[in-house]
């Protein structure tokens, strides 16, 4: 009970802290806008530059770095361990393992960089950057908070708001393949090469289903801009229930989440790494170059959670009491609450990813392709047609929402039906005869 209450206290404190943080970010963005106006540029130039620092360099990197610690601590919690607690600040306080963040960074930076002799010099150096930069830049289009009036300026909590928001996501996700592929290729190691081939095959395949799964969302909201999508998800569709992507596109959500999970190359999709098979495409990397490849994975996890939040979980809409909040709060504070809600959803999604990552074993190379081409892609295409037909019949999205409700019920039903063991013990899906049938032959 004490732990339970403590947990909620911590979550509450984190959310309040995030509100305060984003209040400050809004103020900074407004100041940036003011500065830009004073220099004779449009206001959003200034706010975009400030947001690039506050959102990408501070928020994204902090979340990604904290994720490395969270992964250690959460995996430990799942495995009845304590986890990272050896660094004691002041000889006394482990601080939940957070100091490991600094220790890891210091270790990566000061480690000896070892270069394979037969490497391809330029590509070897470029690969970690090519892996890291595109994933990092993806965050630019993610709308963290709404557009509000702050300090006399209209500012939004995003770096850029291109009309082609989702296309930017696809484009950069496509480029990040190069980093991993070239890392394996350039290190001129057979095992690294195997990892690189696996990575490229997997990521290119999953990009297809990734893109296709979002077509339904584009049809439903009639936009490809992430900002517009976030706004559209605030409108009510079934009575008081807002038109969340999760409600309208449950199938699309599942396909997107699975595909983007595959894009992050973490278990159960960690074949390019496959640490017990081929060790991975970054086998020959050491020091901070490895660190960059490693961090790129964590950044990808955060980005995936951010895009999923923006497209499927209502973006920055706090959903509960939104009308009241908007009516009674100062616009800047309302914006901060919205941004904190976004971060809260993002953290929830990263946590789900951690649970999956530490629970499931790894697929095999051909199974992963089968999953993509035989299950996810047909599912996504079906979703596109169903969505298109539903929107054509009823542009108010009501029909689509009811279809979504039916899909959610069906998904739950199937999950419940499948998760029930068939036999009293040890039954499995195949239903064919196995070891237990032939007990005690030696009697």
């Amino acid at each position, binding site marked *: 009970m004490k732990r339970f209450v403590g947990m909620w206290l911590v979550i509450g404190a984190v959310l309040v802290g995030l509100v305060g943080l984003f209040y400050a970010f809004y103020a900074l963005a407004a100041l940036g806008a003011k500065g830009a106006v004073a220099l004779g540029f449009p206001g959003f130039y200034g706010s975009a530059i400030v947001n690039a620092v506050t959102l990408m360099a501070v928020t994204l990197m902090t979340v990604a770095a904290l994720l490395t610690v969270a992964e250690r601590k959460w995996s430990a919690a799942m495995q009845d361990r304590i986890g990272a607690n050896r660094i004691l600040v002041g000889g006394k306080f482990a601080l939940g393992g957070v100091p490991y963040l600094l220790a890891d960074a210091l270790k990566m930076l000061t480690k000896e960089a070892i270069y394979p002799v037969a490497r391809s010099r330029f590509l070897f150096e470029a690969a970690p950057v090519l892996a890291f930069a595109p994933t990092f830049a993806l965050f630019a289009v993610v709308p963290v908070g709404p557009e509000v009036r702050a300090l006399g300026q209209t500012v939004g909590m995003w770096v850029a708001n291109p009309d082609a928001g989702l296309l930017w996501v696809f484009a950069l996700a496509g480029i990040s393949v190069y980093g991993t592929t070239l890392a394996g290729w350039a290190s001129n190691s057979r095992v690294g090469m*195997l990892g690189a081939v696996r990575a490229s095959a997997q990521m290119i395949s999953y990009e297809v289903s990734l893109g296709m799964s979002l077509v339904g969302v584009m049809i439903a909201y009639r936009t490809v801009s992430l900002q517009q999508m976030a706004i559209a998800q605030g409108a009510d569709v079934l009575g008081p229930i807002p038109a969340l992507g999760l409600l309208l596109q449950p199938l699309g959500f599942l396909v997107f989440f699975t595909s983007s999970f595959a894009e992050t190359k973490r278990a159960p999709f960690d074949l390019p790494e496959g640490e017990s098979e081929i060790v991975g495409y970054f086998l020959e990397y050491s020091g901070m170059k490895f660190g960059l490849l490693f961090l790129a994975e964590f950044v990808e996890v955060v980005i995936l959670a951010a895009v999923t939040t923006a497209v499927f979980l209502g973006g920055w809409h706090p959903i509960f009491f939104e009308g009241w909040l908007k009516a009674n709060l100062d616009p800047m504070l309302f914006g901060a609450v919205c941004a904190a809600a976004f971060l809260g959803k993002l953290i929830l999604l990263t946590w789900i990813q951690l649970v999956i990552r530490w629970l499931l074993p790894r697929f095999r190379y051909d199974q992963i392709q089968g999953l993509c081409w035989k299950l996810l892609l047909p599912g996504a295409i079906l979703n596109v047609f169903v969505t298109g037909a539903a929107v054509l019949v009823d542009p108010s999205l009501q029909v689509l929402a009811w279809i979504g409700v039916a899909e959610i019920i069906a998904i739950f039903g199937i999950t419940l039906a499948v998760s029930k063991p068939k036999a009293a013990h040890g039954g499995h899906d195949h239903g064919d005869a*196995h*070891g237990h049938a032939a*007990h005690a032959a030696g009697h």
Partner: protein
Amino acid sequence: MAKDTDNLLVVPAAPAESPLDAPFPSKRMLVNLGPSHPAMHGTVRAVVELDGETIHGMKLDIGFLHRGFEKSCENVTWTQVFPYTDRLNYVSSIMNNVGYAMAVEKLCDLEVPERAQYLRVLTSELHRMCDHLTLVSAMGLELGAMTVLIYGMEARDLIWDRLTELCGARLTSNYARVGGVSRDMPEGWGEKVERTLERTAEMVDEIDRLLTRNRIVIDRCRGTGVISRADAIDYGFTGPCLRASGEPYDVRKATPYLVYDRLDFDIPVGTNGDNFDRYLMRMEELKQSDRIVRQCLAQMQPGAIASDDPRFVLPPKPEVYGSIEGAMAHFKIIMEGIKVPPGEAYACVEAANGELGFYAVSDGSGRPYKLGVRAPGWNMLMALPQIMEGRMLADLIPTFDTVNMIGGEVEQ
């Protein structure tokens, strides 16, 4: 590298299917897995020839853990061999102790007291559980489900704690002696073991829920690493791997030794001979070992834990310090070793991996003239190249796990 792989059959890849097909030049890739590789536990090297991800030819290179076990044993007294046997299958050392002790006792024609027999069975089965837990959890780890490993290790460490209380060491138990065992159960140990078994069963259930019906595990293990019943017999498979292929052979049932004929237990038998069946064998044997241990604890009577034959067994300590005969016998056994009558004998036990046999030759002196070991893992390992031919590289990992090659035992 070229030298290591001379024996590999290198054939041109992708032969044209019809005479009009344009030749598509490609090369196969040789990849060295091991000796230091995360999946090649026990330092073995596998040189695999890959066409894409498909294995075409595989060569196993063992010997990185070779310690000259058999030869070393000729230089020490019969009793001093026991610590060496600990290092064979180091996860379940008591079964090695027992197997060796049985071979020597056969030579000496020595009767072991009943309580010692029960203790041997009890500790053997506890160690069998350790071995199977290690295998199942390591398989989970190498398939990518690391959480399973930690659950398995927790259960295994609980059992090791009990064995530490009994014989003073977690890993190298050195528990059996010629004519009996080294120590009796501490007070209250039996109840503690039962409580440990309950906790272990919970962990096993947890692992079972995580793995047995897991779609990915089934996909990875079902139908991979298949060996037919006939092939398994031809290769000399024993133990869970043979039973997974459908042959109900278990030394404990075929030629019951110690007190196994008084215990009620089943041996699981599979049908497919694939990785999944081999995994299921282990999960079921964990439950059967649990049964055996409980029965042993219930049936055991107080009594001597070692034979009182002064030729082979050390006299009790009060006699050593209190009488000249005792001190003399102690000195002779320690310095010269027990005088095992000349002859040769083979004794085998059902170890965690299969039939573990010890072939001992004595010339009547205090040291073994020759000692041979039939390691169960060897046969399974040698079948690996055939099992893996034409399969995918990723299949090698669970297969290598479920045949359970233990370096210490294969490379004596």
